[in-house]
């Protein structure tokens, strides 16, 4: 119980520290991006406008959460070592894995808040644009029949908010938590934050190719042995990040079946747990 309290204290501290580092300033850029985008899009048809608003907002959400996950996680171990707070903390009866868990929870909380704030901004913009387009549609069709108006209104509402956007946003958050956990694992043996960031960025790209490597390896194509070995190594050692790319198709109107969402979320949580365990294992033997 006492160590759970210590973990939460570390998590709270990590979160506060990141907030003080003005991490949330990126929200300003996000807001400018989506407001600017929606103002610029006025010359397009409403279907195109909503499509692009969703494309750019969810894409930006994914970029920002991934960047925060990698940069914030890569920075904390070298920083704690540099300003020696890690020695003060670990001198107390706080196991190393608790220290890492606290840090990870702090970063995941930050990612959760960032995702919530960006979602609120995005949904508010979408709602405002929807209302503007609906008002225009109603005034344009003032003389038409009720049936025609209902059809036109349905066309607008169908193109805007879609309940499937919510699981899509949840998957963006889970993917960022996975990246934070993966970066934590790298930083558990890395010697500098630059190395961690570069490795995490490389793994981000390789992770998106993992499914291709897996298919290549498992399909049993008759190729050189070293080529298959390489594909097997990628398939076994790297996370399948492509599995978390559901938003591209959600934006296009594809509905997410509940089992697919739960399985994808479950896979993400499993990755977070496994990378954290590996980080704790390596970090427990590290000379500080």
């Amino acid at each position, binding site marked *: 119980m006492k160590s759970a309290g210590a973990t939460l204290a570390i998590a709270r501290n990590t979160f506060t520290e990141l907030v003080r580092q003005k991490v949330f300033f990126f929200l300003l850029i996000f807001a400018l991006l989506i407001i600017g985008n929606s103002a610029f899009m006025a010359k397009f*048809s409403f279907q195109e406008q909503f499509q*692009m608003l969703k494309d750019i907002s969810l894409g930006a959400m994914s970029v920002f959460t991934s960047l925060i996950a990698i940069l914030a996680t890569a920075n904390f171990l070298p920083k704690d070592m540099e300003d020696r707070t890690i020695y003060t903390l670990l001198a107390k009866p706080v196991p190393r894995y608790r220290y890492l868990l606290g840090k990870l929870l702090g970063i995941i909380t930050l990612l959760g808040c960032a995702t919530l704030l960006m979602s609120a901004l995005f949904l508010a913009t979408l709602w405002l644009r929807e209302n503007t387009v609906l008002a225009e549609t109603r005034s344009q069709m003032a003389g038409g029949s009720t049936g025609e108006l209902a059809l036109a209104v349905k066309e607008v509402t169908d193109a805007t908010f879609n309940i499937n956007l919510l699981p899509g946003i949840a998957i963006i958050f889970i993917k960022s938590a996975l990246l934070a956990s993966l970066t934590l694992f790298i930083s558990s043996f890395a010697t500098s934050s630059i190395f961690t960031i570069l490795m995490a960025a490389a793994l981000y*790209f390789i992770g998106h190719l993992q499914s291709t490597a897996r298919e290549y390896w498992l399909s049993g194509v008759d190729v050189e042995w070293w080529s298959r070995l390489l594909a097997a190594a990628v398939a076994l050692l790297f996370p399948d990040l492509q599995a978390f790319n559901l938003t*591209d*198709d959600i934006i296009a109107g*594809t509905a997410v079946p509940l089992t697919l969402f739960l399985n994808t979320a479950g896979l993400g949580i499993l990755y977070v747990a496994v990378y954290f365990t590996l980080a704790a294992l*390596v970090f427990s033997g590290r000379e500080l």
Partner: protein
Amino acid sequence: MNRRKIAALGLLCVFGAALLPFQSMLQREAQAAHFQKTTLSINLRERIGQAGFLAALSGFRSPLAALLWIQAHTAWENTEWGRMAGLFETVTTLQPRSLPYWDMAAWHMAWNASIAALQNEKQASEALRIRAQRAYIQLGRDFLERGILNNPDRPQLHLQLGVLLRDKVEDHCAAAEEFLKASKYPDAPAYAARFAGYEMAKCPGREREAYDYLRKLYEEGEKQRLPSLINLLRQMENKLDIPASDRVLSEVPNSEH
């Protein structure tokens, strides 16, 4: 490398191996639900450049498609039809499940580009202008047909193809088939079925079938009893010499529409 790092690497391999069947199952499940079906080929790599291809590979297909769509819009403002067609090709490859992209690409090609080709003052030969017009209409049709292949679970592109076949190709039999296909989807608008009937009535040899079909629609109730349907039924009853006792519209007053 110390023992803990070796153990971590070993555990990572074991975890990766244990996860393989689940990952493959998840991929199949996603593809069955129309997710992750986009094929990023070398051809696409040539069209969007290395940075674009990297972005597409990293899960940023949709923002990239949006940016290219804006470029296509600029090309439209400058009436660069060939460039537009190329950009539409790329956008629809990146986002094959996005209906507005297929729909708008087809509309720009079959309507705007085809008219521009027909009115092209730089081309003196009328035959060549007409040929270019037909080529753009065919391009629009091709976008819709490929869009349908990528979205077999949605009626909207069947409807748009029906409109294109009706208004641009003037192939009423083919248009009727497309509207009919659209009308069979549970979320199809009510007018899809009516449009199928209207086009069937213009298809040589299918007049009787069209009459029966429209009559069935009429009997569905008020929702389908629009002036155009009533007028067409009346015309067909006369044309097909339907006995007065069998006519469904004997007591319905003639409409102005």
